[in-house]
């Protein structure tokens, strides 16, 4: 399966969402309980909810944009485009983007959860795995944007670290 630039956008968006939001859940829940099953359940719940909202969000947003494009083309061509190759390609793009966004979000959510699922759960392991994934994501983003790989990785890991630090600060002064 090859990804074009449009899908690359959803791979990056979904992965960052899944990775960091799930990491946030793990860090937050681990303050209250160190029980593996509670953290895994909370993490999976978050992962599924994120995947569904990202997928549905993309579906609705892309449907709106694609429908607008079709209507504008129809006005210029003075004909309906329903039941044409153009309309079917448009529908395929909407579904592909929704699956890519939701799927990337879900798969990335599994990364910080993996140590807990395997029974070797620790916040440090989740943070480390997430940061390593952000390095790969940075390389991928650099490849897509034709940017310097080091800059792209630094940006991705830097932003990820910022979020991890923010979540850790919240953990220190936890309100629960």
């Amino acid at each position, binding site marked *: 399966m090859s990804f074009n630039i449009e899908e690359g956008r959803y791979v990056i968006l979904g992965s960052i969402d899944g990775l960091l939001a799930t990491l946030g859940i793990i860090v937050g829940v681990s303050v209250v309980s160190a029980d593996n099953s509670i953290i895994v359940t909370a993490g999976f719940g978050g992962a599924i909810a994120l995947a569904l909202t990202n997928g549905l969000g993309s579906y609705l947003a892309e449907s709106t944009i694609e429908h607008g494009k079709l209507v*504008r*083309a129809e*006005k*210029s*061509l*003075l*004909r309906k*485009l329903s039941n*044409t*190759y*153009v*309309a079917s*390609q448009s529908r395929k793009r909407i579904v592909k983007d929704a699956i890519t966004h939701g799927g990337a979000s879900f798969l990335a959510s599994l990364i910080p959860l993996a140590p807990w699922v395997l029974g070797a759960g620790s916040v440090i392991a989740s943070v480390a795995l997430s940061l390593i994934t952000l390095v790969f994501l940075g390389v991928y983003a650099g490849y897509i944007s034709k940017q310097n790989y080091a800059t792209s990785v630094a940006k991705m890991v830097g932003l990820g670290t910022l979020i991890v630090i923010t979540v850790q600060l919240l953990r220190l002064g936890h309100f629960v």
Partner: protein
Amino acid sequence: MSQIKRLVLDVLKPHEPTNVEVASAIGDIQDVEGVNVSLYEVDQETENVKITVEGINVDYNLVRQTIENLGGVVHSVDEIIAGKKIVEEEETLHDRG
């Protein structure tokens, strides 16, 4: 009915599918031996192309259907060559003047 050997069509189409895809789709039609898609004008939403189709027995309806399925509209049929041999347009005195 004699067989159509060449069709020249003036077509308005959206930017997607690309002209490469359009040429390839028309080229896949039975009895079509060659296709030329030339871009004439590009607008914000559409582009105007001249499509030349050659073959032993070109089915105009099939070519039009393929173009319409790809989102295009045939504005006019600018040239048709049918029969046993290809007859090119002759220059008349009027054209020379």
